[in-house]
């Protein structure tokens, strides 16, 4: 900075900015945030989706309220058997929590590969969910950890619903016009469980998933059969899909045998991919098959490691 102070321009404001100035308020507490939402302001969290859309439109769609100033919504903690991630917690904030890493590895696998260092420092987990992208890297992890969305509004009080109910279609959520996501509540792994998320992209960073797969497994003992399983598929349907039949095929089986191929076949058959600029539907189906075959053994190894055994 030159230290010359603020340049005055005729008419004021940025000269070359491609974006009209935003009408943004920055409340410091939840009460102020709920009030702003009741007045119809659009929630702006990290802005990594909303500001890019605004750039292409030349302006934000309307008056907005910044979520990030509400300190009480920024926390990440595990208490009373729940991983609670505040509605304003950034992806980087989530990744800094060792408790979250232990509780929900599949969620953190996804969080770690969102965007870039710069993006993760501003982007929020709740924002990644509310953006409603079928390819969101954190959503399959939220799904296998049976996350619930906690919502509040000035006039409607609070409610909560499961992530699968909250997501109603591509870019469509159940968020009401006056509501705020106050927290995401994920179920931590049990002592004999492991979870994993992997995606396929062409570039390692700053790229969107062709396909993402999350797997959560429970085992009796290291080397023993799979006791419980869930599989979530991202970017192969209007929202995240649960591959329940594929998960069922793993129960009572070892993670490396013919059951793994059967589960991969069932997951590939259950997904509903589309052709688009990133990938053909047929290729996405093959990727689901491949990623299930990678995630199941990884989730199993992690479960075994939690028990402290040798793994399979």
């Amino acid at each position, binding site marked *: *900075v*030159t*230290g*010359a*102070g*603020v*340049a005055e*321009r005729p008419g*004021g*404001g*940025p*000269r*070359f*900015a*491609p*974006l009209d*100035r*935003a*009408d*943004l308020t*920055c409340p410091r507490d939840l009460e102020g945030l709920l009030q702003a939402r009741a007045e119809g302001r659009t929630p*702006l969290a*990290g*802005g*990594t989706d909303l*500001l*890019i859309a605004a*750039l292409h439109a030349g302006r934000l769609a309307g008056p907005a309220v*910044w979520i*990030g*100033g509400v300190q009480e919504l920024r926390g990440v903690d595990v208490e009373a058997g729940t991983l609670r991630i505040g509605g304003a917690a950034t992806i*980087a904030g989530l990744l800094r929590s060792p408790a979250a890493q232990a509780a929900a590895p599949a969620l953190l696998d996804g969080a770690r590969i969102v*965007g*870039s*260092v*710069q*993006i993760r*420092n*501003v982007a929020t987990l709740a924002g990644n969910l509310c953006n409603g992208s079928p390819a969101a890297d954190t959503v399959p992890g939220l799904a296998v950890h049976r996350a619930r969305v906690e919502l509040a509004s000035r006039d409607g009080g609070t409610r909560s619903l499961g992530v699968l109910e909250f997501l109603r279609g591509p870019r469509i959520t159940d968020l009401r016009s006056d509501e705020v996501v106050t927290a995401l509540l994920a179920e931590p792994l049990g002592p004999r469980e492991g979870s994993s998320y992997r995606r396929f992209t062409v570039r*390692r*960073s*700053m790229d969107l998933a062709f396909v993402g797969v999350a797997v959560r497994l429970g085992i009796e003992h290291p080397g023993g059969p799979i006791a419980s399983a869930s599989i979530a598929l991202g970017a192969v349907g209007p929202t995240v899909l649960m591959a329940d039949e594929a998960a069922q095929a793993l129960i009572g089986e070892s993670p490396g045998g013919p059951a793994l191929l059967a589960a991969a076949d069932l997951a590939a058959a259950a997904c509903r991919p589309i052709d688009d600029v990133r990938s053909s539907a047929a290729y996405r189906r093959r990727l689901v098959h491949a990623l299930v075959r990678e995630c199941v053994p990884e989730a199993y190894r992690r479960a075994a490691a939690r028990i402290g055994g040798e793994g399979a």
Partner: protein
Amino acid sequence: VSDEACTVNGLRQPVPAQWRGSRLLDFLREGLGATGAKEGCSEGECGACTVLIDGEPMCSCLVITDTVAGRDIVTVEGVDPALLERLDAAVDAHGGVQCGFCTPGFTVMTQWLSAGGAGAQLTAAGVPAALEGNLCRCTGYLQLHRAIATAAGAALDGGGHDDDR
């Protein structure tokens, strides 16, 4: 307006009313004359506009100025001069610059890395991952990554030093 001020490179800067609602990048460049941060892609992809906010790198094209009230901003103009000297020499030695447009963003990231931003035990192999949000369309990255690893004092583990010629 006192509660609307931020700190830029150690100087307290009130945000005048006409810059409310603008992008931080515009306030820095046009309001304060700090033109080091560059506008590349305008959508958080290229990292040329990277600044540190409370010590963490962010793209100033994706930050609305109102949200930095009370926060501490470091732009490329505020990077530690001794580090800058080391980076200059390393970039020169490794051929890590051509057009220079991405250089301010990489320089701010070097400051962050040398302050331990990517973790205590930064290795040369870890440098490319830490710089995932910074694009360079000229050098091909290896030269830049080597230069930055050298300047930031990354432990040499062989990973960033394959010969690419």
